């Protein structure tokens, strides 16, 4: 059986399973709260899988594999950065956010800082940032299908968008959580089958090590210097600590304890996936020492190294990763429109039914529009995600982490922090690299956000104090 036919069959079975779960979720979704946060019914196992699936995206299977291919074993040191981010989240963000009982992240900001402007600004920033990430997911899907099957990217994007939209629109968070669980299983299956076969082809671990050292001694030693690695790990960690599409997942879990356990379960899934991704990257370097593009490592493996069935499962795993991230993005963005902008700012008296309807309509619209942007290929997938990765923590990290853990911040401090952080990050991305390339835009964005947050909050507090003193 050819790879194309086997892949078609495997994909058909997989999509059928997604639609069945979507329909099951639809039957249980009665209110907009059911839709956005699954009625707060998700437990630790599914919750942990959901967190892992949301974070593992097209980039893990394409970008991270490619990065290990280029840089070797030492690139694995970014994972402690990711786990550090999860640790911050588990200690200072997730359980408190869950206990707060909000439906979206702007909900929390609006309530914590008693500010409608904070809600509106954060909702708009989330929509902008995540639409960029969605374009990246579609573009990655187009490239995978084109590389493996020669299919026009537009068709591949349409297939991805339609299947993701169907299950997201039908069952919202409930179906997406159970589908994420299935997707993590598929990812684990695809990766765990690929690694032993690659090891066998590469002549075993000892020979692979010798071959890697022979190709480039940095592949088994240090490729980047420690400052670069620390910067990379920090960027990953800070992004994970306050990512709205992960935070929304916390809201859907039962309670604080469930959130903490789920983060632990997520660690385990990520450790397995991270190790397999590293092995695939370095073993592909042994088997194909000079690929035309490092981003092709996964596709070449699926097509040329694995058997048709294992290769198909791996491609489906890559598509699963794209789908789970797209689905999480769609839920966050549609929540921003229907719940925060429409339901809380424009029409606070809107019925729950109309919000649920708007949720589904906005998911359809938001899922379709990025196809056009993805087809324009303004830049490559990696660059699109880098923009989003820098942007989100630049405006969110400080107001959320300090808002949850301290009473110091004021509404104007939070708004100044969000606005300053996002503008600072964008400005540094455009021009800052030329001035001081050692600093990343995310570090500058967070630093500006923190300075403005504390300065404006302190000024506001002094003003309040002097005003109350003069009145007394």
């Amino acid at each position, binding site marked *: 059986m050819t790879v194309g036919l086997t892949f078609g069959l495997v994909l058909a079975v997989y999509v059928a399973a997604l639609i069945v779960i979507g329909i099951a979720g639809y039957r249980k979704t009665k209110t907009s709260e059911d839709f956005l946060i699954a009625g707060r019914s*998700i437990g630790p196992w599914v919750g942990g899988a959901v967190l892992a699936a949301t974070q593992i995206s097209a980039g893990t299977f394409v970008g991270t594999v490619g990065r290990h291919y280029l840089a070797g074993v030492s690139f694995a040191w970014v994972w402690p950065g990711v786990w550090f981010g999860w640790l911050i989240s588990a200690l200072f963000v997730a359980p408190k956010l869950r206990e707060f009982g909000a439906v979206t992240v702007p909900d929390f900001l609006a309530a914590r800082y008693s500010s409608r402007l904070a809600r509106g600004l954060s909702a708009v920033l989330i929509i902008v940032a995540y639409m960029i990430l969605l374009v990246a997911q579609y573009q990655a899907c187009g490239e995978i299908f084109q590389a493996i099957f020669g299919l026009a990217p537009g068709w591949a994007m349409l297939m991805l968008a339609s299947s993701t939209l169907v299950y997201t629109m039908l069952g919202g968070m409930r179906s997406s959580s159970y589908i994420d669980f299935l997707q993590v299983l598929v990812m684990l299956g695809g990766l765990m089958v690929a690694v032993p076969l690659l090891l066998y082809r590469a002549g075993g671990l000892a020979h692979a090590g010798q071959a890697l050292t022979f190709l480039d001694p940095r592949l088994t030693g240090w490729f980047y210097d420690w400052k670069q690695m620390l910067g990379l790990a920090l960027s*990953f960690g800070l992004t994970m600590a306050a990512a709205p599409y992960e935070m929304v997942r916390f809201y859907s879990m039962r309670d604080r304890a469930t959130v903490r356990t789920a983060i632990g379960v997520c660690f385990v899934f990520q450790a397995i996936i991270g190790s397999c991704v590293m092995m695939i990257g370095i073993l592909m370097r042994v088997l194909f020492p000079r690929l035309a*593009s490092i981003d*092709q490592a996964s596709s070449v493996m699926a097509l040329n190294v694995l058997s048709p069935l294992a290769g198909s499962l791996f491609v489906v795993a890559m598509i699963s990763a794209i789908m789970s991230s797209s689905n999480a993005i769609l839920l966050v963005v549609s929540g921003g429109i229907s719940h925060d902008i429409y339901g809380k700012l424009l029409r606070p008296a809107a019925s729950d039914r109309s919000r649920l309807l708007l949720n589904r309509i906005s998911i359809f619209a938001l899922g379709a529009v990025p196809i056009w942007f993805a087809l324009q290929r303004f830049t490559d997938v990696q660059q699109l*995600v880098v923009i989003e990765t820098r942007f989100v923590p630049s405006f969110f990290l400080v107001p959320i982490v300090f808002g949850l853990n301290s009473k110091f911040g004021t509404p104007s401090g939070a708004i100044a922090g969000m606005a300053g952080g996002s503008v600072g990050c964008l400005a540094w991305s455009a021009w800052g690299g030329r001035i001081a390339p050692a600093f990343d835009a995310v570090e500058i964005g967070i630093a500006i956000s923190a300075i403005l947050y504390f300065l404006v909050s302190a000024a506001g507090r002094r003003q309040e104090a002097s005003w109350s003193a003069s009145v007394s």
Partner: protein
Amino acid sequence: MVRIGLLNVFAMVAALAAPRVAHYRAEIRSEDGRSYQVRIAVQTAGEEWRKPSHTLDGELLKRITLDRAIPPGSTYDLQYTVPGTGNRARIPLAVPEIATQGTPGSVRIETTLPLGYQIAGDMFPVFARNGSGSYAAELANIPSEVEFEIAASGQADLRQRWITPAILSDSAVILFLVAASLGRLFLRKKAGLWR
């Protein structure tokens, strides 16, 4: 986690100006199965390749460096002999230290086996049979080695046919899917665990 990318972009921009392999053709031939003669023809594209060097995997792990630069669009040959080990052939290919252009079919590997022999069971990459004793594989990138098992025509044993890495990995896929489905049913019965 696509997350890193700027370094990729710089690498890709730098790579555009670099010399590339336009066509790579490897011919592997054996008269008796005890040794394999490898003849490689490489055509380059892009800028002049100033320090032409190749890596050779396998037991050797060595570099083959040419003593002259390769002008763009020209073709050069490499030839070497690799000993065979029984029915199993593991033949390292000289891989230029520049990448291909990534177009499908730009890499072609042809294998001609001793008369009366065929590839049985395991092989890498996947070869298609051309005629008696001749096989070909077309790829977009150059593998570091070619690997296959040979047997006299019609005499491949059960192990060679059925216990191959490809079949084992397919079995592992099926086993995993069945175990995951059963596990899901089990956990669903114990609703607390499933949730």
